[in-house]
């Protein structure tokens, strides 16, 4: 299991389009990927669940990744978050 945190920088927060891209990216890995913030937690492979968290700018989100490809997943996710959010 690997964890990392990230503070959302995007003005709109984790909005629909990047959330969709995140789900796509996460779905490419076999590891379970959970995203946690002050409003609760959600499976990063489920778009509606992610959107329901209503993550806004400035939120600190914590990723928990567990599985065979957890290392690659974390690397990809970290890069994605920095670029898009």
């Amino acid at each position, binding site marked *: 299991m690997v964890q990392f945190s990230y503070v959302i920088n995007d003005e709109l*927060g984790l909005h629909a389009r990047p959330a*969709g891209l995140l789900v796509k990216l996460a779905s490419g890995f076999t590891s379970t990927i959970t995203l946690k913030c002050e409003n609760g937690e959600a499976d990063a492979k*489920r778009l*509606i669940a992610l*959107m329901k968290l209503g993550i806004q700018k400035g939120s600190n989100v914590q990723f928990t990744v567990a599985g065979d490809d957890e290392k690659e997943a974390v690397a990809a996710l970290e890069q994605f978050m920095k670029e898009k959010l």
Partner: protein
Amino acid sequence: MLLLDPDFEDAVKDEIIGQHSNAVFAVKKAGKDLADFFSAMEDNEYMQQRCADFLDISDRIARVLENADCNLSTIDEPVILMADDLTPGETIQMDTTNVLAFVTGGGSVNSHTAILARSIGITAVVNTGVEADTKLNGHMGIVDGDMGRVLIDPEDEILEKYEEKLKKYNDEKKSLEELRTVSTVTRSGRKIDLYANVGNIQDVVRAVDSGADGIGLFRSEFLYIGKADFPSEEEQFESYKKAAELMNGKEVIIRTLDIGADKKADYLNLGKEENPAMGMRAIRICLKHPEIFKTQLRAIYRASAFGTISVMFPMITSAHEVERALQITDDVKKELSDKSIRYGEVKRGIMIETPAAAVMSDILAEKVDFFSIGTNDLTQYTLAMDRQNPEMSEFLDMHSPAVLRLIKMTVRNAHEKNVKVGICGELGADPKLTEFFINNEVDELSVSAPKILSLRKHIRELE
């Protein structure tokens, strides 16, 4: 992307499995629940606005599903079709080859389901007052049109009785076949033409098979209803030509577009009317939009080179309307002549289906070659009773003396001007009135093809 999300899918599945909801309802509910969730996110304006996305996608799926639900264009095994009611759009798209019988919870003997059932000769029981229920899927049923009865999962004894009854019915039908080629005269030699009402080309084939003397009412609406756009001139021409060729020289009376009221097509953009039965329909649409009318008339005239075609205008109320319709017809003829396009001798007639037309029939007879009395609308407008409203059955006298008097008057006025008169409404097939029509010298009765042989038998037994 939202659609692929398992949360949406699960919500729909749970609703269907857990609450026994139908798919359309479940999709709408899932969309609504999500929309509600997001619109409640008060501190997040962006997410609040997503509520519209969920409503939009769920509505779109629901629409697709709704269409799929009433996609009756392919029915691949013999069925008894149960529904609360069927719209004209649904009945027109329906493939009836495998429909053994109709059962509807609503409707009346004059509703579209009933008219369709009569035109193709299958049993229907309407206005059962019982909602159609998917629980009945796959069960055996007996639909008894004589008694207006529907029996689900009948006992063997009853089943046997009905099988016998069915055999007897089929035998009788077979013996009628012998009347296909004989003429329609009474014992004392009084003659009446027996024409067929048709709603599409298959009906024309049925009319030929049952030995119709002609087509008294070719409902051209089928070319317009259930389509995304107007039918082209070519498409119409092909249908009219086909009908003329199938009838092989016998008269085919094509009624021009009779849409509006209960028969709708979205692309016409008719708008919502407070009282559509008395609004934009039939000839009124054609006179307001001559380009629509002309396209149809060109197709009809071009087809007239291939057989005997007559044209008939619906919903006439005044001499002025007839004059306008005839003028447009003349314009079309001239256009065709100018382009050296062939057309035949086309008789022009009108429907007498409003009390105004019946009352003015002496004047109208001076302008046209024939009348056809549409008894369904004539009855509805004379009595001010909606024939689709089952509550009216109690008040609606199908043999209303007021209507019969109008018919009598119309025939008398027509014959004074040598104008032929036919009856093309449901009353034409009513054996209780056959004698009345013959006594009043009606020239032609136009009925659904499956009724022709039994009516011919009946007429041949009259004095």
